[in-house]
């Protein structure tokens, strides 16, 4: 598929995504309440609250999956199961019977 680059100003959504709260941002409340920032007569002064530049590569992240995904993180779930398994094995080695060993999988948080 051939794709063409669209210049910034062609998509309103892309523009809004950027201009509303990125770049140099002056405290929104001040902006709204003063209607025009007046430094000289109000004797206010500008203070830099924070500067961030992002000059790193971000981690590649795909979209999180939709609603049917279970609340438990699958990986953590597996870890817990594995841990249960090893604990049960230790107990079995000591000759202790656990109710869980009959029922199979049991999740302990």
């Amino acid at each position, binding site marked *: *598929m*051939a*794709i*063409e*680059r*669209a*210049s*910034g*100003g062609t*998509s*309103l959504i892309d*523009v*809004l*995504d*950027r*201009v*509303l*709260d*990125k*770049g*140099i*941002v*002056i*405290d*929104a409340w*001040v*902006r*709204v*309440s003063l*209607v*025009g*920032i*007046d*430094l*000289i*007569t109000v*004797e*206010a*002064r*500008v*203070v*830099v609250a*924070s*500067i*961030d*530049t*992002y*000059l790193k590569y*971000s*981690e*590649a*992240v*795909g*979209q*999180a*999956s*939709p609603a*049917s*995904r279970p609340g438990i993180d*699958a990986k953590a779930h597996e870890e817990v199961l594995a841990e249960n398994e090893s604990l049960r094995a230790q107990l079995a080695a000591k000759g202790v019977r656990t109710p869980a060993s009959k029922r199979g999988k049991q999740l302990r948080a």
Partner: protein
Amino acid sequence: MQRKTAAKKLPVKRAKRRATGSGSGSGSGSKKPNLTLAAVEAPHKAHDTRGKYVYCVIRAAEPLRFGPLGIGAETAEVHTVNYKDLAAVVSDTPMAVHDPTRDNVLAHERVNETVMRKHTVIPMSFGTVFKTREDIVELLRSAYEAFNDVLVKMQDKLEFGLKVLWDRDLTLREIENEDENLMRLKNEISSQKGSTYFARMQYGRLVDAALQARSERYVGEIFAELRDVSVASRANKPIGDRMIMNAAFLVARDQEAAFDAKVKAVSARHEKLTFKYTGPWPPYNFVNIRLKLERAKEAE
């Protein structure tokens, strides 16, 4: 998170403010607060009803002009207010809150794109108006270090946007065809008598995991391919069901053609994905300077 909330609330607050504010601003009480009127009236008004809308900060020791591109109906001349080797790119505008309408937002962006052709810009977020030239000089003076530092870091770098969308159902069918377990489960569900609850649960979990893995693989591949031709990248949250990637890349000006070619090559290789490629943008996603105003007396 907080930032998003604030941004969403803003237009409401602004609208209210205008409703109450514009009445007192206008000397003729019988006239309705109306944008067109304000624009027509403005040139005859005293100086204190005029303000300067700020688009961005650039490096420039001499005053510059960029043409009649300004925000608002009068499309005023875009020019600079200079302090030392910094300049704010501004245009004269009525002293009012600018709502983020289509025209206003696009005007803001249009000015930045024009300035960006020859200058490294630090973009101002939408809707900042100062009362006088002196106020803007004061802004540049107070935040000089911050602006200077960021201008050095962003020197000759451009931002590009890349969104990637997929057809979820099509991908799902592909995954089902490739994965025996899924195929078997699906057949089980359709042929089984009685409750299929557990089979369906398991099927759903497998499908989600497979889709997630597939999406991460695509996104990982795309990021990896563009790494050599970019300076930095940011992954924003995808919007909606179809989007798997919503990224911004910072690219050196002299790498623009290489980046462009690479994006096209990557998209050609993934013909089932839809790519939305935009730019060049001012480096909105790579710069965040938060400024506060303090009363001078409190600061002592």
